C-alpha cells in the first residue's frame, strides 16, 4: 500500500514503508522513548521491544480518503512525564513528515505500550 499525493505536475506515490520508517526514526530520536513495540505481538499479550532496525513495525500508516493517519506503538522510560512525551512525539513526527516528505498527516495517534524501568529505579 502507498500514499498518493496529487500535485500539479503529476502524482507522487510514497510507500507506507517509507512513511513508517521516517516516522519511526523521528520517534526514536524523541526524548523519553526507549523503544517501539510491534502491534502484531499484542495478540499474545506480549509487548516486546523491537530491534532498532525494525522500528517501522511499530508504526501503522492508514489512509482514509484523502486523510493520512499514523498510529505509533511506543515504549517509554519510567519516571518521565509520559503525557508530555507522547505529545512531543506527535509534534516531532508530524513536523518531520511534513519537512522531509511533504506529507501532512491528519493525526498521529500514540499508543503507549509499555514503560521500561531502568536499572537504578
Amino acid at each position, binding site marked *: 500500500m502507498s500514499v498518493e499525493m496529487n500535485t500539479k505536475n503529476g502524482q507522487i506515490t510514497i510507500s507506507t514503508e517509507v512513511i513508517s520508517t521516517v516516522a519511526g526514526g523521528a520517534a*526514536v530520536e*524523541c526524548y*523519553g522513548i526507549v523503544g517501539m513495540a510491534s502491534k502484531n505481538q499484542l495478540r499474545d499479550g506480549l509487548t516486546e521491544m523491537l530491534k*532498532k532496525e525494525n522500528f517501522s513495525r511499530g508504526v501503522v500508516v492508514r489512509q482514509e480518503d484523502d486523510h493520512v493517519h499514523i498510529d505509533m506503538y511506543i515504549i517509554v*522510560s519510567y519516571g518521565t512525564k509520559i503525557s*508530555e512525551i507522547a505529545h*512531543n512525539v506527535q509534534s516531532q513526527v508530524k513536523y518531520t513528515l511534513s519537512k522531509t516528505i511533504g506529507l501532512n498527516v491528519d493525526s498521529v495517534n500514540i499508543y503507549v505500550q509499555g514503560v521500561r524501568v531502568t536499572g537504578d529505579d
Partner: protein
Amino acid sequence: MSLQELDGKTFAAMVVQGSRYLSNNAQMIDALNVFPVPDGDTGTNMNLSMTSGQQEVKNVTTDHAGDVAKALAKGLLMGARGNSGVILSQLFRGFSKSLEHKTTITTVEYASAMKQGVETAYKAVMKPVEGTVLTVAREASEEAEKAAEEEKDFIPFLERVVKAAKKSLDHTPELLPVLKEVGVVDSGGQGFLTIYEGFLSNLKGEEVPEADSGVSMDDMVSAEHHKLNQDFMDTADIHYGYCTEFMVKFEEDKLQETPYDEEAFREHLSEFGDSLLVVSDDELIRVHVHVEEPGRALSLGQQYGRLTNIKIENMREQHTSLVGEASSPSKEKSEYGIVTVAMGDGVKKLFESLGASVVIEGGQTMNPSTQDLSKAIEQAHANRVIILPNNKNIIMSAEQAAEIAEDQVTVVPSKTIPQGMSAMLGYSPESTMEENKQAMTSMMSDVKTGQVTYAVRDTSFNGMTIEKDHFMGIFDGDITVSNPERLDVAKGLLSEMIDEDDEILTIIYGEEVTEEELAEMKDYAEAEFEEMELEIHEGGQPIYSYIFSIE
C-alpha cells in the same frame, strides 16, 4: 566567603534564582529554538517546567538538601513541558536520587549527583541526539567531576562547571547540523546554562540582571530568519520586504522629550512590522524588525537618540535569488547543447538565434580558458554538448574542456565566426553526435571567411609590407589586402574572395563602422556583385570592422 557545604536552604535559594534567570531569558531562548521542531517554545517550556520545580522547592520546610533536590525533581516531573522540559526533569531526577539521604552536599557529592543525573537522562532515550541539552549537561558534569577533586569551595567549583557548559554550548553547532545551518547554539543547552548561571550568581550574592545578554542578538536574528524561510514558499508571500537592523545610542536631551519605554517601543514597531527583536540597556537599543517602510522604523528609533550600525536588506530580492538557485538545477537536461565563443552582442545574438545554448564572450584578443569552457558546458545543461571555438587559438582549450567534462562533448573545430555559423546550419537535433560532427564540419568547409582589421605594428607578410594602424584584409587566415583606408580594404578583400560560383554574401559589421560607411559598403556590394544575395548584420564586435561570409 568560603562555602564548602550546601545546606537545603542555600540550595533552594539557588534553584529559585536559577528559575528567575531562566524566566528572564525565556524569550531569547525561544528565539533560538530550531530543533527538533522549530516552533520557538523551548524557553517557554523550560521556564514553565522550572517554575513548577521551583514552586515545589518553596514548599519544603526542612533544611535538608536531599529533600530540596527531591522536591525539585518532583516539581520538574509534574510540570515538564516540551522535550527540553522532560530532559531537564530527568537530569534532576537522577541528581536528586543520588542526594536522597544527604543533609548537606559537598562539591564531590554534587559532581557525582550531576553525573547520575546525566546517566538517568541518557537512559530515557533510545537514540540520544548530540548537540543538545544532553551534550551540554554531560560535558558540564564531566568537568564537575574534575573540578570537585580540586575545589572544595562551591563558588570556584560552579564557576568551572558554568564555563564548561558554556564551552560545550558553543560547540553544539558542530554536532548538530541544523544548528550550524541556521547559525545558532542549541536552545535547550542555552536554557541549561542559564539555570546554572543563576545557581552561581546566587552563591556569589549577585542580583538577578534584567534580561541577560548571554544569548547574542545575532543568534536570535538568524533563528528568526530561519523560521521565516520555512514559512515562505513564494516570494509574493512576503508582506514585510525589508529586514531592518539598527542601534540607537540614547541621547539625554532627546530622552527628556520622549522617555524611552521598551514595551511601548516594541508595540509601536509591531504595528507595522514583524519578526521583531528589541534588546536595550542603559546606553543603547538594538532593533531587528521586518517592515515594508524601513524609514518609519528608523524615525521611531531616532526619537531616543543617534542611529548607528544601520543595515537594511531587501528580503524579496534575497528570497527570489534563493528560490531561483533552488529551482534551476532541477530543470531537466536537454538532449543537445551547443557552446560557442563570440565577440560582440550582435554576433552573440546571431548565434543564439541559430540555436546556440551558451555563447561565451571571447575571441582574438581574449581567449576563454579551459575552465570558462567547462563552466559553459555545465551551463548548457545537456546530455551531449558540441563546442564551436570559432578561433584557432581556442580549439585547444575547447578540446581540453571536452576531455574533462562528464557529459559527452565534442569539438567542431571552427576557426572563424562565419565557419561557426555555417556549422550551426549543419546541426540537427535528431542526428547522432558523430553524424552532427561530420555534417557540421563539412558545412564549415563550404564557407569562405573574410575579416577586415588593423595592424598593431609594422609587419610584412608574403612580400606585402603592412604599416602600423593600416587596415588589412584577411582571407581564410592569409592577409591579402592592405591599405590605409578601411573601406578600400573591405572592397579589395571582397573582390579577392568572390568568384562566380558564390551565392550568398553576409556582412557582419563591427562597432567601429559608421552608418555612412556602411551605406557605401552596401551600395558597392550590390552594384559589384549583383548576382549574389546580400545579408547585413550588426555584430557589434571590436577589432574586426567587417566579417564577410561567402558561400
